[in-house]
């Protein structure tokens, strides 16, 4: 006997673009021109569906038939979660649980947390496929390494993958926002627009080698290479606020003035802003993410800022998709969710006093039962 999944297609990411020296370094191994082009196109495309429910919208959907999965309720949904080890996943996980609670036909919801361990998630998926689930939702910890496990589950149960993908198209649907290129490009374009030519940009990244983050930077690199800005530094911060602050202070000290800050994730944006404040300098144009602490800082300190997002409302979609599949309704093969950008104009709508500082504004959870207490907020 073997629990081994079937063969998996592994696509090596490739591609690079030449660049004259803009200080941005070599292009990432993860850069794929076709994906980049597709995401750039999607940013301009109009999503289908009701704008009130962005988590049900999709861009350029190619529907697949799901009649073969149709069965009568009640349903037992299963979920293999990569981890709940950061605020983004926390907000998302709570949102997903609230979504599940909305549907009476889901009588059982089994979720296993892999705690960020690939090997545990492989075992978890194997365990869940043996538990009689009607549909399996997977949020993979890493793309390549979870592929065999997902391929193994596909023949036994309809699989819905979201957030990170897997290198097989056996899941019924793959749900994601537009993607990392769109995030990185939005922030870079904002800086190119706001920072005067020749301005010095500091790029802050969390870690090398994480696909979703690599794509963000590679899109920004493409944009900066075409601009007349100078990227004076690309630094890794480990997502640590203290380190971020130190790095930014060092750059202010070394270059006297920094004209713009690009970030691949917003968690440490406030620390970067504070570094300028502590140095007694005006805060230059900067990007963050949709976390409350940054939005509040933005509004309080009247920053020139922008916040591209990687919306947490995508955690609602897999549950909705699972029910659609089990009811035999069509779902997009790749479910591209809209990925809004918070700008000065719409900042007020996303600023939610009473929510915790690390809460993500685009949780799509405001109308879910239990809001805001379940998300740690006060009304």
């Amino acid at each position, binding site marked *: 006997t073997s629990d081994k999944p079937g063969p998996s297609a592994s696509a090596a990411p490739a591609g690079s673009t030449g660049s004259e020296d803009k200080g941005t370094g070599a292009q990432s191994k993860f850069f794929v021109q076709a994906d980049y082009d597709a995401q750039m196109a999607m940013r301009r495309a109009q999503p289908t569906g009701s704008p009130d429910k962005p988590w049900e919208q999709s861009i350029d959907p190619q529907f697949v038939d799901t009649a073969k999965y149709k069965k009568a309720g009640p349903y037992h949904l299963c979920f293999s979660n990569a981890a709940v080890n950061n605020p983004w996943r926390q907000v998302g996980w709570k949102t997903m649980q609230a979504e599940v609670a909305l549907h009476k036909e889901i009588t059982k919801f089994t979720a296993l947390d892999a705690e960020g361990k690939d090997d545990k998630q492989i075992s978890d998926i194997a365990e869940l496929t043996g538990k009689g689930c009607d549909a399996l939702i997977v949020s993979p910890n890493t793309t390549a390494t979870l592929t065999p496990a997902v391929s193994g589950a596909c023949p036994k149960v309809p699989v819905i993958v979201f957030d990170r993908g897997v290198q097989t198209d056996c899941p019924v649907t793959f749900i994601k926002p537009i993607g990392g290129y769109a995030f990185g490009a939005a922030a870079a374009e904002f800086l190119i627009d706001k920072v005067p030519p020749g301005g010095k940009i500091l790029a802050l990244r969390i870690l090398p080698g994480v696909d979703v983050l690599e794509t963000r930077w590679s899109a920004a690199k493409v944009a900066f290479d075409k601009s007349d800005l100078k990227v004076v530094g690309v630094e890794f911060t480990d997502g640590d606020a*203290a380190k971020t602050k130190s790095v930014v202070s060092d750059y202010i000290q070394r270059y006297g003035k920094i004209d713009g800050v690009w970030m691949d994730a917003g968690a440490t944006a406030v620390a970067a802003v504070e570094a300028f404040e502590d140095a007694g300098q005006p805060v230059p144009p900067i990007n963050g993410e949709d976390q409350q602490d940054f939005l509040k800082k933005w509004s309080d300190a009247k920053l020139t800022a922008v916040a591209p997002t990687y919306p947490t409302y995508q955690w609602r979609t897999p549950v909705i998709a699972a029910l659609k599949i089990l009811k035999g309704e069509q779902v997009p093969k790749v479910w591209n969710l809209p990925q809004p950008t918070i700008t000065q104009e719409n900042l007020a709508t996303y600023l939610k006093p009473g929510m915790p500082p690390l809460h993500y504004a685009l949780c799509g959870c405001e109308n879910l039962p239990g809001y805001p207490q379940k998300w740690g907020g006060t009304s």
Partner: protein
Amino acid sequence: MRRALPIFVVLAGLLVAIAIANPYFLEPPAFLAFVKRAAPLVILAAGQYFVIVSGEFDLSVGSLITAEVVIAARLIDGSAAATWPVLALLIVLGLLTGLVNGTVTTLLRVPSFITTLGMLLILSGAIFLWTGGAPRGALSPQFRELGRGSLGPVPWSVLILAAVAAAAICAMRAGFGHTLIAAGDNDRAAALSGVRVARVRTVAFMISGLSAAVAAILLGGFAGVSAQVGQGLEFQAITAVVLGGVALGGGRGSVVAAMAGAFTLEALFTLLNLYGISGAVEPAVQGVIIIAAVALGAVSLPRRRAAAAS
């Protein structure tokens, strides 16, 4: 003191190297900024020194720091009025954690490596169980002042560091310090000479917890709430203490040297950054230097002993 000499030579060398790369470094503002940045680790190393010299380990300080910052944020929730009571609570919590570590280690005879590893798991689990996985609330500006602000040109953290250093040196000069080292050198002999070994060790753990609380206040103040403020700090603190020539296993080394070890580590990070060695190579360089420094310390130890004996 003589034993601690090498670390000061290394530290001076690193500072000179930094100054060569960045001439402004030795000017007061830049140097104070460096000391300010180093302050939390130095304080933590001072606390860890007490535990190590008494013959134990404290692996729980990193997650204690995270827990303290997260607790502070949730309890203060941006309110100025809550700041001082919460600060007091954080101190009490640090002491209490140390008390539990110390009691379990000394009375239940669990090796401190395991006691504090368990405490690490318990603290990091419990704190997020309480807040539902991510920090909530916010630190007040008053709280942040200690880590961010300054008194005239001198940052508060530098002043606090100076006070902590003075207190640590006094504690080691006092009878307590001597009995602590006695317990670390030979706990049976110390006990048979009337030293309350369990008590002084427990106090050492409490000092370590206290230092973690102070470091948490400074780190939270410096950079704000985050779920990973304390990550890896326990290993950095132990590394710093060992760099300072303090023997793991207890009984040997000075607190000043331990703090110098922390400064050295911080200077090393700064230097690596300055020379553009960051990202991938950084940990490797760090690893080589730590092994080399400790190995050299071990090799040159006999010569120093001979010098002391002649």
